[in-house]
């Protein structure tokens, strides 16, 4: 049970949050222009890294805000937390 520093509320227990999977996958602006393969790439393909991963988290039992988290999946260490739309920190 790790602690997540919600950019809006501060540090809270993990059980207040829900994970939204890999971050920075942008929904294509013109889906109809895409081939099946290109659309499938957006729809299905996700990384599952052992190590530092960029993730979306939602403070679902708190402020309900979505934000991004840089987490090492091997030890749950959170390297940084930043708001939606903000630039990800360089690795």
């Amino acid at each position, binding site marked *: *049970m*790790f*602690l997540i520093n919600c950019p809006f509320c501060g540090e809270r227990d993990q059980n207040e949050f*829900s994970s*939204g999977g890999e971050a920075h996958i*942008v*929904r*294509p602006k*013109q*889906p*109809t222009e*895409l081939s*099946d393969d290109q*659309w*499938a790439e957006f*729809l299905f393909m996700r990384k599952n890294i052992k190590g530092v991963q960029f993730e*979306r988290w*939602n403070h*679902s039992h708190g402020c*309900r*805000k*979505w934000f991004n988290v840089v987490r090492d999946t091997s*030890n*749950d260490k959170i390297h940084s937390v930043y708001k*939606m*739309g903000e630039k990800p920190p360089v690795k």
Partner: protein
Amino acid sequence: MSDLRVHKTKYINETKRVSFKYDGKNYFGYEGDTLASALLANGVHLIGRSFKYHRPRGIMSCGSEEPNAICQISAKNDLTEPNVRATELEIYDGLEAFSQNCWPNVKFDIGGINNLISPLIPAGFYYKTFMWPKSFWKKVYEPLIRMSAGLGKSPTEPDPDIYDHKYVHYDVLVIGGGLSGIISAKIAAKSNLKTLLVDDKKTLGGSTIYQSNDSFKIDDQHSSKWLEKEINEISKIENLTVKTRTSIAAYHGYNYLLARENLTDHLSIKDKKDKIRQRLWKIRAKKVIVATGAIERPLVFNNNDRPGILLSNSINKYLDYYGVTCGKNIVLFTNNDSAYETAISLYKKGIKNLIVDLRKNSQSEIAKQAQNLGIKIYFNHVVTNTFGYRRINSVELMELSDDGNTTIGNKIKLNCDCLGISGGWTPTVHMHTQSGGKLDFKNDDQVFIPKEIDNDQISVGACNGDFDLETIIDKTVNKINIFLEINNQDYKNTKVDCSIEKEKRNIWLLPNKIPLGKTKCFIDFQNDSTAKDIKLALKEGFRSIEHVKRYTTTGMATDQGKLSNMHALGIIADTAGVKMGTLGTTTFRPPFTPLTFGTIVGRNVGKFFEVVRKTSIHDWHVDNKAKFENVGQWKRPWYYPKNGETKHDAVQRESKAARDSAGILDASTLGKIDIQGTDASEFLNRVYTNAWSKLSIGKCRYGLMLNEDGMVYDDGVTTRLAENHYLMTTTTGGAANVLGKLEDYLQTEWPELDVYLTSVTDHYSTASVCGPNSKKIINKIFPELDLSDENFPHMSFKNTKLDNINCRVMRISFTGELSYEINIESKYGKSLWEKCISAGQEFNITPYGTETMHLLRAEKGFIIVGQDTDGTMTPSDLQMDWIVSKKKYDFIGKRSLYRSDTIREDRKQLVGLLTDDPKEILEEGAQIVLDTNTKPIDMLGHVTSSYFSPNLNKSIALAVVRSGKNMKGQKLTIPMENKNINVTVSDTIFLDKENKRLNA
């Protein structure tokens, strides 16, 4: 005082006798005794039978590592508890304990026959034996396994005890109140850090607190005296909390730990009453100091499991802490110095003993002390066998060869009534590994010690592989100063004198003249796995320790291999010819010792088990004898049986009344989301499959929401309340997820949209009145409202008032009948409902529940998301192509609707089914096939909804069937257990295809 209680100690209060029952026999001990010490004082060693071979077993240790002395507490069906360690259980007046695993009793055990046939029960026996023939499973193997499986009995009635949870935050948590833990806690607390010290025992001090040997002195006093003063000092420090009888169960990441505090387990039955039994502490600590000490290792030799064989240090504790001797003629068998302390302690109380030492000699101070006292020592000898069935009566020794691989010389037989064994010490690294820490192997002492870890955690003392007094104090103080970034000088001048061990000799599996296959060298006492089993597993090709463990069940019992893991690893390494640790170390998982379910759930039992949501009309439903159905957390009226009606009869009556005259449904649980903002229309365009821009104010529209993969996710009616204001309804179960999903899109994909979402599900109550007489009823309630079709057509809404309270009335229908839904602020919900009921009385208005609602909508072929869909259905699969806008450029899931997979013609599609026998009601979930003769039978789909329709007087069903769209009129078969049911594919709409009833 029994003649085994040989020594007075301050931990046993001999003025307070405590009587208890063990296996139906009355005994007594004293306040301060554990069940184990009290039984030993009564001369009871035999305490159970082993799991597989049912061999007689005795108390082996004095703590949580105990593999044998586990018992069942209490005979009551509600309070009984299995697998309690007699070595940890403090006795109390009225305690009733039983041995486990024995039938008919501990002294004569039928399962003991397994011991005689043990050559037939090798490692992996269950995997190998209970395989074939298949027909043997039900009648032979399963009953056999069931009869002999499991430890103890579960309670059969609810636990009457009270349990509690508590959240706490500390700067520093110290786990373990032995020497190093106490020093650590004192340093931390004196540095102004809010500190918590926990220890699983009743008293602090670990194994130092009963130390009385002259070879171990601190500041010229016995180390126990010195530590007592330290304990006395820490009790005065204000920002230090000390919790005894508290054991850490789990150490999770980010220094989040769970601890179980025993509050009343040691109290008499009378004093326990109405008090909280156990409390689960949920601890967040900025820094954690692990000082969990070490567990003494057994030695692995033939018949090392008889009652009367104990760990050497446990014999010492029973003597010096509890005042009880484990025997009158004791042999100590060791490979290290610590057994000498036991020997000297025994000697001083006049207990006859001698030492068998694997080592060629020992030059330490304590060994010399023993020699000077005249204690007989057999250096370079090994115990090769033991004798005695219910209690050890003699041992057999032989000399060891120079390399330690074989025995030489003649057998020496010595009589004894107790054998103490010591194979060295294993640091208790469970906490460290639970938290994710890794281990290093320290060759000198043959121990795994914690690898430094970067998470505000440190291990000190014996659990870090530091065993002698001087090193413990020195290293602990230094490490804590660095760890806490302080400079404590309290122990700078502390003078330590101690005997230091110089000679070491570790042999994992001791040599014997008897071939291994004919020996019983136990490694895991609780699960009865032997050295032979481990070697067999390796011979059969297992290599990874995790595999060997599972195959042989070593370390898999309730003690989680606290005594057995090291020997298993050692024998594997020796046999495979590799270094320790290269084939993996086992992972210790929580809990450290078993937790009761009561502690885990705390107060969340009974009505507090799960949140219950009730509508404001709930009490009326209860008063009117509704049966309830759980929908998510909601309690919804299921049906309202009248005069002892069955569910079927009630639903038939309700369904008929709703179509013949009037029905009323509590629809308050439907999710409601208030949507506002200048981009609200555009937002709806993007989340629903149909178009919304042109919906005029005051109108309602049904919408279907997809996932990005094109599958139906939710549905509901949305009403345009004003230019930039909508009220969306969702399914009852989907409300929270839909809101979450919409927020996700708004915040992450379309932040440019000016839209605000608010859940208003609980803010409004909804009464839905339907049926041909509904208009008359609504007219009676809202006489000023013009209900004409011109002014108030289907799919529109009006603002109005009920006794000055604002209402929204929507003319929408989920039944196909003329229907009105009235929304009112929740607190007026019940009064609105009662007004509807009284206004409807003359029309026999009939309250109906979810079952009737489902039936009525099925007659009309309306889907229920989650019942007729399962996350694999597209709108087209549901024959709902009409709701998918062709014009809109994009909406959630649109692109997926023409992926190669979603346009397949042979997808499962929603169809209607009519049974050939109109009285036959299909089972929901039943499989559908074309013919039952071609095998394997090809499964075409399954029934999703099925009812007997009173309005059509026949059975109707919805189903998903492969290529079903083009199957109208096709005969299909539904094979059931006893018969095949013949059905015909039909349209999904069974009643009023022309929607005439909407405007009746």
